[in-house]
C-alpha cells in the first residue's frame, strides 16, 4: 500500500482575497517536496489544507484516494504527521511524555507507548532529554524532541512547517540533518520554508535532483522545479522579489539573494 497525499486545484478564499488558488501537488513516501515562497504566499494555508485542518473552498485533498475531510483524525494521523514551527506546550511535561503522546493513534498500553517513545528519542540522539521538562529545553533540543514525536507517530508522510524558524544556525543544521535522515529512511517529506538554503543540510551530494521545489507566490504556484535545475535561482528570485544566484560552496548549492536595483 502506498500512501499518497494529493492536493488538486485547492483554492481557499477569505472574503474577496484568495489565500490559495488552484494549487496542486503530490507527495509519496520517498519524495521530498519543498514549498518555498515569501511570507503571506499561502504556505501555511496549504499546509493546513493538506492536514485537513481547513477545508478548501474548491479542489480536493486526498490521502490514498480518499478525501481528507472524510477520514477520521485517527485515520489521517496514520498517514500524515506534522512538525509545527515550535513546540508549544501549556505545561512542563517531560520530553518522554510529549513523545509518548504522539502515539495516540495506536491502541496500546502506556508502557508500550513509552518504549516506542524511547526508541524514537534514541533515533534523534535525545535519550538524555527524556526525563527533562520540555519547557526547560533549548529551542534546538525542543525541535529534536518534536522530531522524535514525529517519528513516534509512525506516519509515512511528514509535513514540516518552517521547523527551523526559531533556531540558530547550528541548530538549523542539526535539524535539517535529521530531516534528511527521515527522508532517506523512506518517509515522504513536505517541507515549507522561506529559506531554501536550509535544504542543503538535508541532502547528500547527488540527491539534489530528487528534491522537488514548488514556488508559491500570492497563493498561486509560481514555478515547479528541482533543486539542481540551472534556472532555479531565477525562479526563486522572481518569487521573493530579489535577484538570486545559485553558488557552489563545498559541493553544495546555495542561493544568495541580492537587491534588484544594482543589477548588471
Amino acid at each position, binding site marked *: 500500500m502506498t500512501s499518497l497525499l494529493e492536493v488538486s486545484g485547492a483554492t481557499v478564499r477569505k472574503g474577496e482575497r484568495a489565500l490559495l488558488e488552484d494549487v496542486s501537488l503530490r507527495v509519496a513516501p520517498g519524495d521530498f517536496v519543498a514549498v518555498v515562497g515569501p511570507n503571506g504566499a499561502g504556505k501555511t494555508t496549504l499546509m493546513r489544507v493538506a492536514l485537513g485542518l481547513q477545508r478548501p473552498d474548491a479542489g480536493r485533498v486526498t490521502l490514498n484516494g480518499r478525501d481528507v475531510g472524510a477520514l477520521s483524525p485517527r485515520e*489521517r*494521523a496514520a498517514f*500524515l504527521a*506534522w512538525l*509545527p514551527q515550535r513546540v508549544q506546550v501549556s505545561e512542563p511535561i517531560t520530553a518522554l*511524555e510529549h513523545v509518548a503522546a504522539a502515539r495516540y493513534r495506536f491502541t496500546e498500553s502506556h508502557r508500550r507507548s513509552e518504549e516506542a517513545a524511547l526508541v524514537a528519542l534514541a533515533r534523534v540522539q535525545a535519550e538524555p532529554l527524556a526525563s527533562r521538562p520540555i519547557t526547560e529545553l533549548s529551542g534546538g533540543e525542543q525541535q529534536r524532541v518534536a522530531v522524535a514525536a514525529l517519528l513516534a*507517530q509512525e506516519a509515512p508522510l511528514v509535513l514540516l512547517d518552517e521547523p527551523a524558524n526559531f533556531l540558530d544556525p547550528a541548530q538549523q543544521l542539526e535539524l535539517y540533518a535529521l530531516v534528511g535522515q527521515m527522508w532517506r529512511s523512506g518517509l515522504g517529506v513536505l517541507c515549507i520554508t522561506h529559506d531554501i538554503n536550509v535544504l542543503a543540510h538535508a541532502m547528500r551530494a547527488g540527491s539534489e535532483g530528487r528534491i522537488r521545489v514548488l514556488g508559491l507566490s500570492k497563493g498561486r504556484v509560481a514555478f515547479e522545479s528541482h533543486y539542481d535545475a540551472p534556472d532555479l535561482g531565477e525562479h526563486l528570485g522572481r518569487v521573493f522579489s530579489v535577484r538570486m544566484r545559485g553558488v557552489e560552496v563545498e559541493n553544495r548549492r546555495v542561493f544568495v539573494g541580492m537587491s534588484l536595483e544594482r543589477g548588471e
Partner: protein
Amino acid sequence: MRTRLVVMLAVCALVVAVAPFIGPPMPPHARDFILWQLRIPRTLMALVVGGTLSLVGAVYQSLFSNPLAAPSTIGTTAGATLGALVAIVLGARAAMWGLPLITAAAFAGALGVSLLVAAIAAGRNVRMNDLVLAGIAFSMAAGAISTGVQFSADSAELLTAMRWTMGHLPQVGYQNIVMLLPIAAVSVVGLLTLTRALEVFISGEEHAESQGVNVRAVRMASIGLGALGVAGCVAWCGPIAFVELIVPHIVRRVLGVSRRVLLPCSVVVGASFLVLCDAVARIIFPGKETPVGLVTAALGTPLLIYLVARKPS
C-alpha cells in the same frame, strides 16, 4: 515521585478513616445514631462531591489550557444558582419524584446553561477562548435573571437563597447519596477515559488533531460529562467554593502535571479534602451547620499560596 504518591494516598486514606470521629463528643446513647445516620452519610457525600468537583476542575484546566478554568467558567454555577433561586421563590418545600424542588431546579439550571456552552463547543471553528467568553456571557445573563428573581423575593426567601449559595453538605440520608452516586460515577468514569486525549491536548488543539484526536468530540464530551457531574453536586450542596480550583493545583504542585497522575489523584485528594473540610467545619462552630464552602476557601487558600510561593525543588 513514587514515594510522594504513596504518602499522599496514605494521608488521604487516613483523613477519610478518621474524619467521622472528629467533632463534638458523641453522647454514649446517641453514638450509633450520630455516627451511622449523620456523620457517615455526610462523609460519603463529601467523598462523592469532593472527588467529582476536583476532577472536573482538573479536566477543565487541561481542556482550556487555563489554570483558572473551573465549572463556573462555563456557566454551570450561575445556572445552578438561577435554578435554585427560582425554586426557592416558587416554594422550596415542594418536591418532585422524591427530590426537593431546589435540588431538581438547580440540577436543571446547571445542566441547561452548560449544555448551551457545550453546543457552542461543537462548532467547527470555535476556539477555546470563545468558549470561555460564551461561558462568562451566559453566567452574566443567568446572574441578571437571578437578580431579577431575588428582587421579587421576600426576606425569608432571600436568606434561604443566601445560605444556599454558601455551599454546604446537607444532612442527607443514604437515599440521596444513592441518587447522586450514579450521576457522579458516569461523570468521573467518563472523564477519566479521556485522560489520553487530554495528554495530547497539552501541545495545542491543532497539533492534537493532527496526532489523531477528534478535538470536537473530546471537547463536547469533557464539557458535557463535567457539567453533568458538577450539576449533580451543586444540586445537592450548592456551589462549594474553590475545591475544583484548589485541589488540582495542589496535586499538580506535589505530584506533577502528567495527566495520568493528575486526573485520578485529583479525585482521591479532592474527596478526602472535602471530608477534612467537613470535619473541620464541625469543630469550629460545634452544633451549628457551618457551610463547608467557608472552610474549603479558608483552608485551601493558604495551602495553595504556600505551594505557589515555595521555590520549586
